[in-house]
């Protein structure tokens, strides 16, 4: 180890001081990669935590949660549970909840843009306990509706006790009074900044749901007379549940929340790792250059008796040190960046899944350590090959200034391995998904994508062999290097192929998605006006419109047709499923569905048990046309028969679509979830919308054009992060090409002198370098776009299909791919020309 220490102290650190700009650049490259990774993770975690907090409310520490298998829970069930539990000291806390939004008459009509709060109605005794802890006076409790909020929310909204808060509850404006502010207590979870607490009966009245609640939180502390109280409680409550409710533990709830956002989290994690990968690649290129610059010094050390192992260790330790410093810097930068990213991620999650309240990303020690460890790990991986190259320096060759370019890296020259990996990818692509925690994960498809990328990257170097002898002196020199590519050429091509393939694959997928979704939106959104509760800020919100409001609207003279959509959730195969009650005749008349398996005409008349399912549900449950489906309903389990399967790109969890009569029979609910209106030919949609909005301020009312635009905006918002990271990937690959060429030029400094000696001008040297770079870029673009097409197919036909159950039609974004190719080629030529200009000024090695 003494050798290693000497190398580090007397050589490496001295280089750090002398070439501090280079070292700083290295640190920044690696720190930025880590920062992107950490920022995405922290923002994602914060948004998810907000989502989980939103879902679980203030009772997240309960032992068990009881939820109805279908529809709401009923008050008599509570008495039944109490009786079954007998003298056991178990607390049953019934809770009713709904998402509400502040009434903002002038708010912009962007879906997901309003703050979304959770109104939780719970037992009065629990509320009184909370009120006793309040440090402030409790105002009069009688009369109007009163709420309690935490200190965080009161501070955020600037409320004081007695404040009047207008809320949109379903389709009504309800003004509530702030009764008390719950202070922060040590060792007690503070109510989050989106939670409004209300007395249970008051909440049931406000929500027009008498004798109903959504869940029961069960608190069963172990000890005393009942040492196994938790387990007993679960057993008793499960035994009497029948088909009516489910008993969920903490792990089940976490798994449910996790499965709902699994795809989104996986997407972000993969993208953030990609950022670190490109940082590592740039670092590899930079370290490669460092080794070439220090080759003579290494040769001297080797000649003086330093072993290969010491040289290798010294380089790896230096890299680890760089990684450590960059990791700490990256974590801090990432934490700062996460504050901006968290808002974007939370907004996307709100639009896609429901609600997230995150506005600030905390720095978690485990995330920081993971970030630093990944940075050090990336740094070590990036340094592995340069360290090996440094250790393999032959002193005699270098010291006699007769060093031939390093010719190892047999693996990278093995194009057949690349071809083999591509074949493996094709085989893997035929495999099905793996189900984990209730979510289908296309593991084999992801492995196929990885194999394909690696295979294409390895095989991409073969394209260089198509370069023939150049006509002029400049192209002769440039093409001679391409015909016999070094490992560095292959690395540069591999990076370009990977980046271009990923970008073009994503472009194909997004184009196909875009094409399919646009077609679906045009087909399914044919009504002139769409109405929902203003509280429904996401596709899965459960807020309803009362039957009375619907009837009022139906009487308006401008309306030719009005269709109501009913909605409830049931649990099938441990996951939530939407059940929709539709006006089937209306849907058929206007041809609203894109069919995977079209049902017969007037299908709802053919059999009383006929339903439609969406494609996602069919894939998730493994059922298809004519199969039977058993679902829980508020009136007992029902057996349904699948009469058709429709495409649905708004919901990956699954939907069952049944005629309204059947829906009412199963769930007894007459409230509307959504309303679609067809206007008479002479009616002005915008004027009707404005008039309806004035009459019903608690509703969100959209014209067809606006809703279509909003649907597309949410779709594009989902892919915005993907686009920007892919762009970063391409920029980094081009920068990597520049660095690779710089290393090649340093390695060939002797050849450059030879070229000058036989009459090459500086311009000629730069031009030869530019041609060489252009050749690499061209090969990278051709191989990248070609393999990107297959990758696009894989994402569409396998990853999407397996993860979400969506069938997408293939759409080739020809102009986008051409633009990508031209951009990469142009950037590659410019980067190479700049390197060439620098190389032309390199001083001769042959000086005495």
């Amino acid at each position, binding site marked *: 180890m003494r050798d290693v220490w000497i190398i580090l102290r007397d050589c490496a650190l001295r280089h750090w001081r002398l070439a501090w700009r280079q070292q700083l650049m290295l640190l920044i490259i690696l720190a930025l990669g880590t920062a992107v990774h950490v920022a995405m993770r922290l923002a994602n975690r914060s948004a998810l935590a907000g989502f989980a907090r939103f879902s679980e409310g203030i009772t997240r520490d309960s032992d068990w949660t009881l939820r109805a298998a279908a529809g709401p829970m009923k008050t008599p069930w509570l008495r039944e549970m109490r009786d079954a539990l007998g003298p056991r000291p178990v607390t049953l806390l019934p809770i009713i909840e709904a998402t509400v939004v502040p009434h903002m008459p002038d708010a912009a009509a962007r879906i997901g843009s309003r703050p979304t709060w959770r109104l939780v109605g719970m037992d009065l005794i629990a509320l009184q306990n909370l009120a006793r802890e309040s440090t402030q006076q409790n105002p009069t409790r009688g009369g109007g509706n009163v709420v309690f909020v935490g200190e965080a929310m009161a501070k955020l909204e600037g409320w004081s006790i007695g404040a009047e808060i207008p809320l949109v509850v379903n389709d009504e404006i309800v003004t509530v009074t702030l009764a008390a502010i719950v202070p922060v207590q040590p060792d007690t979870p503070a109510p989050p900044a989106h939670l409004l607490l209300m007395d249970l009966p008051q909440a049931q009245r406000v929500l027009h749901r008498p004798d109903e609640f959504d869940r029961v939180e069960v608190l069963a502390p172990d000890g005393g007379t009942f040492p196994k109280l938790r387990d007993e409680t679960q057993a008793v409550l499960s035994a009497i549940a029948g088909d009516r409710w489910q008993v969920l533990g903490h792990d089940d709830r976490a798994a449910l929340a996790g499965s709902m956002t699994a795809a989104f989290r996986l997407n972000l994690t993969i993208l953030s790792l990609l950022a670190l990968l490109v940082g590592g690649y740039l670092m590899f290129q930079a370290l490669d250059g460092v080794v070439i610059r220090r080759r003579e010094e290494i040769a001297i050390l080797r000649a003086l008796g330093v072993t290969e192992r010491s040289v290798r260790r010294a380089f790896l330790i230096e890299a680890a040190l760089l990684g450590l410093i960059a990791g700490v810097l990256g974590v801090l930068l990432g934490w700062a960046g996460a504050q901006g990213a968290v808002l974007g991620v939370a907004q996307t999650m709100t639009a896609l899944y429901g609600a997230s309240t995150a506005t600030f990303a905390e720095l978690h020690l485990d995330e920081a350590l993971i970030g630093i460890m990944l940075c050090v790990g990336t740094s070590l991986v990036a340094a592995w090959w340069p360290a090996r190259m440094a250790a393999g320096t032959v002193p005699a060759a270098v010291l006699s200034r007769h060093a031939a370019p390093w010719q190892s890296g047999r693996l990278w020259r093995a194009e057949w391995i690349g071809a083999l990996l591509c074949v493996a990818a094709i085989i893997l692509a035929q495999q099905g998904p793996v189900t984990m925690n209730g979510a289908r994960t296309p593991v084999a498809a992801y492995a196929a994508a990885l194999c394909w990328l690696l295979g294409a990257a390895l095989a991409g170097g073969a394209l260089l062999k198509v370069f023939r002898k150049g006509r002029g002196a400049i192209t002769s020199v440039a093409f*001679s290097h391409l015909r016999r590519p070094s490992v560095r050429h292959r690395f540069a091509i591999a990076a370009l192929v990977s980046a271009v393939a990923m970008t073009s694959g994503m472009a194909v997928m997004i184009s196909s998605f875009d094409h399919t979704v646009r077609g679906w939106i045009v087909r399914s959104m044919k009504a002139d006006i769409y109405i929902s509760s203003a509280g429904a800020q996401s596709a899965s919100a459960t807020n309803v419109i009362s039957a009375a409001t619907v009837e009022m609207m139906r009487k308006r003279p401008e309306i030719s047709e009005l269709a109501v959509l009913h909605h409830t959730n049931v649990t099938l195969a441990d996951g939530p499923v939407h059940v929709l009650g539709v006006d089937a005749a209306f849907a058929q008349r206007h041809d609203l569905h894109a069919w995977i398996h079209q049902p017969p005409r007037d299908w709802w008349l053919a059999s009383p048990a006929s339903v439609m399912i969406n494609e996602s549900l069919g894939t998730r449950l493994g059922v298809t046309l004519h199969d039977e489906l058993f679902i829980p309903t508020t009136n007992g389990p029902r057996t349904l028969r699948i009469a058709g399967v429709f495409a649905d790109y708004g919901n990956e969890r699954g939907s069952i679509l049944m005629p309204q009569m059947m829906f009412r029979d199963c769930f007894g609910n007459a409230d509307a979830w959504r309303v679609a209106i067809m206007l008479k030919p002479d009616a002005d949609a915008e004027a009707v919308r404005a008039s309806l909005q004035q009459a019903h301020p608690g509703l969100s009312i959209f014209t067809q054009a606006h809703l279509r635009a909003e649907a597309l905006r949410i779709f594009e918002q989902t892919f915005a992060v993907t686009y920007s990271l892919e762009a970063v990937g391409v920029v980094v690959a081009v920068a990597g090409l520049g660095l690779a060429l710089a290393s090649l030029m340093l390695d060939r400094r002797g*050849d450059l002198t030879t070229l000058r*000696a*036989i*009459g090459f*001008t500086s311009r000629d040297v730069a031009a030869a370098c530019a041609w060489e770079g252009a050749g690499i870029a061209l090969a990278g673009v051709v191989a990248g776009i070609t393999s990107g097409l297959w990758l696009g197919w894989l994402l569409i036909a396998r990853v999407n299909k397996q993860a979400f159950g969506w069938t997408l039609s293939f759409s080739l974004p020809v102009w986008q791919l051409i633009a990508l190719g031209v951009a990469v080629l142009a950037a590659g030529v410019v980067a190479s020309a700049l390197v060439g200009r620098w190389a032309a000024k390199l001083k001769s090695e042959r000086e005495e």
Partner: protein
Amino acid sequence: MHVLEVAALLKHHDALPILRGVSLTLDKGERVALLGPSGCGKTTLLNCIGGLDRADGGTVRLRGRDIGSMSSDDLAAARRTLLGSVFQFFHLLPTMTAFENVELPLKLLGQSKAERTARVQSLLDRVGVAHRADALPSQMSGGEMQRVAIARAVIHKPALLLADEPTGNLDSASGAQVLGLLREVSDESGAAVLLVTHSEEAAKTCHRVLRMRDGQLV
């Protein structure tokens, strides 16, 4: 007019003097050997003459033209037409075959393919490596590489051939052959040769011998 005329050439590396007022001339067809110990400035002198390095003082005239006043493009043009270089370590471009290496200077001069092919084949034949035309440098022996390097140096019929220790990396038999070859091509083409060497034997093949010590001709 002299092919080469060097007058009072000065060159420093930082404060260290490398060349201290070197003056010499070479005429057409003349072969001059430059002998001296390592570090005496021989290669620096060659680099200054070849325009690969700029002198700090004095003049270098190639066929009467002062290279100190030339732009870098003019210098490159002078190297394409007037100069040929042979190095101790051959410095063939490793990714090009023997044929391509020799052909390269003619490509720079814009000669037609037919013209180039005939000339390169003829010269490879003349230096005795025609059978290695398609071989890469890594596939050739030291003697073969140096023959190819000499062919590349004289393919465009330069007025001055700069040879920096051309036999320094060869065994004695190969070295003798290379020196013979240099003499022959010089005689045939009329090129002046400035031969940097440590070897008294090599110096005997030249018309004149110059000795250098501490940056000066002695």
